């Protein structure tokens, strides 16, 4: 009886392997023909140049729109995650390849607490590569974080 049992086990194993191969094949076919996954746009994270701050922005306008003035919410923390609640924030940016700045002058309009700041007046007036520079002045020091966007 034991040999039979062994035989049964290997059959089950073989069947399992077959199913696994089939599953991988189906997955590969799915990957081949499905559109690429949409970019994870909901939040962008970066660390400021000197490493003083971790900076994230979120926006309800998804994907980040062209020719539509919209808001961002910035979250500023120290590298170990402590919220930076009293920062002076400036926003600048432009298109490095085209040598022009932003079409508006966005700024923080509300300190939402817990290191979160509302930024109004964000606007991009063409598709392509934009660079957004966030100047942060708070207790840890003056530093700048850069977001690169491809719209």
């Amino acid at each position, binding site marked *: 009886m034991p040999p039979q049992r062994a035989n049964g086990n290997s059959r089950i194993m073989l069947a399992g392997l077959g199913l696994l*191969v*089939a599953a991988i*094949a*189906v997955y*590969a*076919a799915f990957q*081949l*023909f499905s559109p690429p996954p949409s970019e994870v746009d909901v939040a962008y994270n970066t660390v400021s140049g000197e490493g003083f701050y971790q900076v994230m922005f979120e926006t309800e306008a998804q994907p980040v729109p*062209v*020719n*539509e*003035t919209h808001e961002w919410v910035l979250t500023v923390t120290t590298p170990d995650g402590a919220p930076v609640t009293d920062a002076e924030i400036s926003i600048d940016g432009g298109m490095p390849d*085209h*040598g*022009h*700045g*932003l*079409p*508006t*002058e*966005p*700024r923080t309009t509300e300190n939402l607490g817990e290191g979160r700041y509302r930024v*109004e*007046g964000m*606007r991009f*007036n*063409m*598709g392509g590569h934009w660079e957004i520079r966030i100047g942060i002045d708070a207790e840890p020091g003056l530093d700048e974080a850069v977001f690169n966007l491809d719209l």
Partner: protein
Amino acid sequence: MPVARPFLAIGALAGFLALSACDPAPLSADEKAKIASLVIDELAALPAAPANLYADNPQAVAFGKLLFFDQGLSGDGHISCATCHMPDRQFQDGLPRGVGVAQTDRRTMPLAGVGWNVWQFWDGRRDSLWAQALVPLEDRREHAGNRTAYAHFISANHSKAYEAVFGPLPELERMPSDASPLGGAAERAAWTTMSVAERDAVNRVFANIGKAIAAFERTLEPGETRFDRFARAIAAGEAPTGDAAFSDLELEGLRLFIGKANCLECHNGPRFTDDHFHNTGVPPMAADELDRGRAVGIGEVLADPFNCLETYSDAQPGACTALRFMKRDTAVMERAYKTPSLRGVAQRSPYMHAGQIASLDDVIDHYSTAPDAVAGQSEIRGVIFTDRGRKALIAFLKTLDAEGPNDP
């Protein structure tokens, strides 16, 4: 069987690529995406006009339409908005510079899609359609009237229509017949004799005239063009048929437009404009030497008593987004002018903010030679066009022609 699927799929893909290779110039995914971004179907819903409570009021629309064509709204009784904004010519006049009572400094703009504009005028010196409509009414080269006279005119000729939308007209009997803070010496002197309350009452009637006209102008939407039928098919992954099919020349022009001619940098989205201001090195007219464009428009819109943040606006201050976050850097806005829409462009020469350039051929010359700006810095980089490239770009622009006699 499942194991065979990816191989089948790869085989099918290889076959597809081989077929595509037979076509000398299939549109790339990037080109298709750019084409799809320009189709009229991408136009967002008409934006709210928070500074104008009556913007979408049907009675205001009807009243505004009446006023738009009423020559009584002028100093001499012969000029209406339609004098320059001619309905059968895309609401423009085909002249290098608009002519009311006299010639102005700027090209008359077409009106299709003005409800989507962020800024009004070539230099953006007004931030709403209704505030814009007030300027020509008192400009001495345009309607050449004054706000007190307009209030009297409304009271005498349109009181019922006015009051149905805006409520009772103020008592005007004792007010001067001609007075304005902007008019000639006599009008300005008369304005100073009026009390603060009287001036406010007249300003309110004046503002409401603008709000009614703006409500009408918001209804002027851009129409569908051949380009849209082409682009809609491309966006849907279908081959354009019938009049939606482009000739080789038109397709080549479209490719230049979205590609190496760099047109899309400013003329983007379904209205073919980025609603921003650019110095493109357009040479001045003789009388235009001192025209600084947006560099002056910034200060003017901030000082406008009818802007979104001022007394006669219906908006909460927070809703005045354009004005609050306006780019105020005059140095980079020297001789910058608003990007015009290109819908219907081939049917409305001459071109540029003062009609300096006579034909589309000459416009292409300008973008090809990219002359330095007389003031400020031109943003354009010269593009070399072949003869066929020029013809192609113009052929493409003609696919944006407005259709039908009443299509703005």
